[in-house]
């Protein structure tokens, strides 16, 4: 059952991703992207990462994609697809680079990736399930976040502050 649901989500995710690249108007690309993000959120649920699935839908598919949509609407972008894709030599070079990337990823994942993981993972999965049962879905993430990784968390807050200030300064019309 899980396998079938996974394949379903995977097909939608890859289809959406292809839609992003070949989409003729930016809005079509954006809607394909939302399909991909939602499918990836579903796969997070299959891997028992419920909090991340909720965050993925709320923050990514909700907030960030709406930000993109606002900018697309604001700029009233054209639909000149022919001028939007680089053909010719650059296209061939891109395909070569993409092929090499795919080969490297395939070698990494198939060669050592899946089998190079310590043990069969049952122990780690059981540990995660135990923590989730004890502290809840949010607590399992929040507990290490506010203890072991609190410095990184605070720095992330600082990064968001800098991003807010930078976005306001950049988008402000020069007077």
């Amino acid at each position, binding site marked *: 059952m899980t396998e079938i649901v996974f394949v379903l989500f995977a097909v939608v995710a890859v289809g959406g991703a292809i839609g992003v690249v070949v989409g003729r108007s930016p809005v079509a690309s954006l809607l394909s992207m939302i399909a991909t993000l939602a499918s990836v959120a579903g796969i997070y649920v299959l891997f028992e990462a419920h909090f991340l699935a909720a965050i993925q839908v709320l923050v990514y598919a909700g907030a960030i994609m709406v930000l993109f949509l606002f900018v697309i609407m604001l700029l009233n972008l054209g639909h000149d697809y022919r001028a939007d894709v680089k053909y010719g030599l650059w296209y061939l070079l891109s395909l070569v680079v993409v092929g090499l990337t795919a080969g490297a990823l395939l070698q990494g994942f198939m060669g050592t990736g899946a089998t190079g993981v310590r043990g069969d993972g049952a122990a*780690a999965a059981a540990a995660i399930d135990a923590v989730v049962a004890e502290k809840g879905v949010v607590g399992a993430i929040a507990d290490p976040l506010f203890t072991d990784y609190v410095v990184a968390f605070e720095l992330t807050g600082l990064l968001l502050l800098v991003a807010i200030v930078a976005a306001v300064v*950049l988008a402000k019309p020069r007077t």
Partner: protein
Amino acid sequence: MLTQALLLSGALFVIGTLGVMVRRNAIIIFLCIELQLNAVNLAFVALSRYTGIEGQLFVFFVMTVAAAEAAVGLAIIISIFRHHETVNVDKFNFLKW
């Protein structure tokens, strides 16, 4: 299911790379970069099931950085559009020196 998830993650990353390289619309290039970040997040979540919950924490940080990157990047696009009336990256050669 780990192998399939890693393969899916690799496929999404490769499609995102193709999009970044062949499209000229800056907003679609940004979307493809988000796609690549998402592919990496998927690999993190899949592997966290086998190595511990730290993988999920890292996904949390990656999402925050992606949000900040999108906000600043879109502000830059708006700023460029205001001066040059285009989002075609081939016309953005004024950062060269």
